[in-house]
């Protein structure tokens, strides 16, 4: 458990740095895939809710440090994702493409719902996604597509 936790946090640091340094500097990308979220989803699915929520909390906190988002927002969202996906441990078998893509889509949906709920609780400081914004749909698309790629080394 400790090993999984440590390993997932180190990977989360690396992925978050890739997001801010590499993906965010591609002017053609309309949205940035949330690779850390995908990682948390996999870690949770493979190791259960305890490892999932713990790695989600710490990975989210790391993202909060390098973003102008209020501290605690990503930590909260990733903890919820980690806990929920941990509950599905052993429920179904992972294939290489379809299930990871579905998990990526579901995780993005959960993130959208969580940020919406938190924006209700904490007011204007917390932004939520708009259904009419292209950013939401692009992020959903990118998360779905990047999920099988992140899945390979994790699985």
């Amino acid at each position, binding site marked *: 458990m400790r090993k999984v936790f440590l390993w997932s946090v180190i990977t989360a640091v690396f992925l978050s740095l890739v997001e801010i340094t590499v993906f965010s500097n591609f002017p053609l990308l309309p949205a940035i895939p949330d690779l850390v979220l995908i990682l948390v989803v996999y870690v949770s699915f493979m190791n259960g809710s305890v490892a999932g929520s713990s790695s989600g909390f710490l990975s989210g906190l790391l993202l909060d440090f*390098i*973003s102008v988002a209020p501290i605690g927002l990503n930590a909260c969202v990733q903890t919820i994702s980690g806990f929920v996906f941990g509950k599905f441990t052993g429920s179904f078998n992972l294939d290489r493409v379809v299930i990871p893509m579905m998990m990526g889509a579901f995780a993005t949906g959960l993130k959208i719902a969580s940020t919406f709920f938190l924006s209700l609780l904490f007011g204007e400081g917390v932004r939520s996604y708009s259904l009419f914004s292209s950013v939401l749909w692009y992020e959903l698309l990118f998360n779905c597509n990047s999920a099988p790629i992140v899945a390979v080394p994790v699985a």
Partner: protein
Amino acid sequence: MSDRRVPFKFRLDIFLLSLYLFVSGLLLAFSSGGFIVNFGNIGFSVLSGAQRGLYSVASFFSGTINAVHELTVMRKSYIELQERIVDYELLQRSNAEIWLENEHLKKLLGFSRSLDVVNIPAEITGRDPSNLYSGLIINRGSRHGIRKNMPVVSFQGSGAALVGKIVQVGRSSSIILPVYDYQAFVSARLQLTRYEGLINGQGGVDVPLVMKYIKKRARDEISVGDIVVTSGESYQYPKNVPVGMISRIRGLDYETSLELDIEPIIDFSRLEDVFVLDMSSLKSEIE
């Protein structure tokens, strides 16, 4: 009477979930309320070092890829033309690159000198990982003299224009909140008619800023294309720095003020170099 006890089972996952949600909720509340300990700055300081390292590695690889690409182009030229012409082109290209770099540096030096306030030149090394927020990460931090809330400008086209302000400072990196972010508010004036209003970002580079609270009587005096500048109130931003130009005027009959769409002067998609302004020098001069 039988002794009936409610069985209590400790659930570690539920306990951890509650704990993490409580802590993150607490942090979220503190980060919007200004708690004494700035968790963001501490964490950012730690991570920014690693980010700078990765940036250097990424720059190295992109440089290598560019070099390989250039080599391919040169090889094509070699086949098409004669060896001497290729050598000549190489020399010319290298000269042109040095000349361009020299011009760029001269320009930056000129810009830096042209600013009335003490300024710290910086380079953008990263952008916010979240799609909902839009921070820009620069390679200058507290050890270079950067402090929270310092305004940031850049030069594109003819003169300086507003980029945003510093919201988080690490030891060797900082985060800029650009004017187009939802959380950015800038007190501004119309350059010609001097009507005052408040500019607020709408969250996207491609979405125009919105300027609110313009007196309705200004309707006949303003037109699309007018420049909007900072008002300089409270020394948050220097006075008369261009922010953008009016792209649309909206005024509803039942409202007492106008709303203007403002197209930022800075093209954020190709923004590389910025200048962080130290307003404390200007403030002390005036006082």
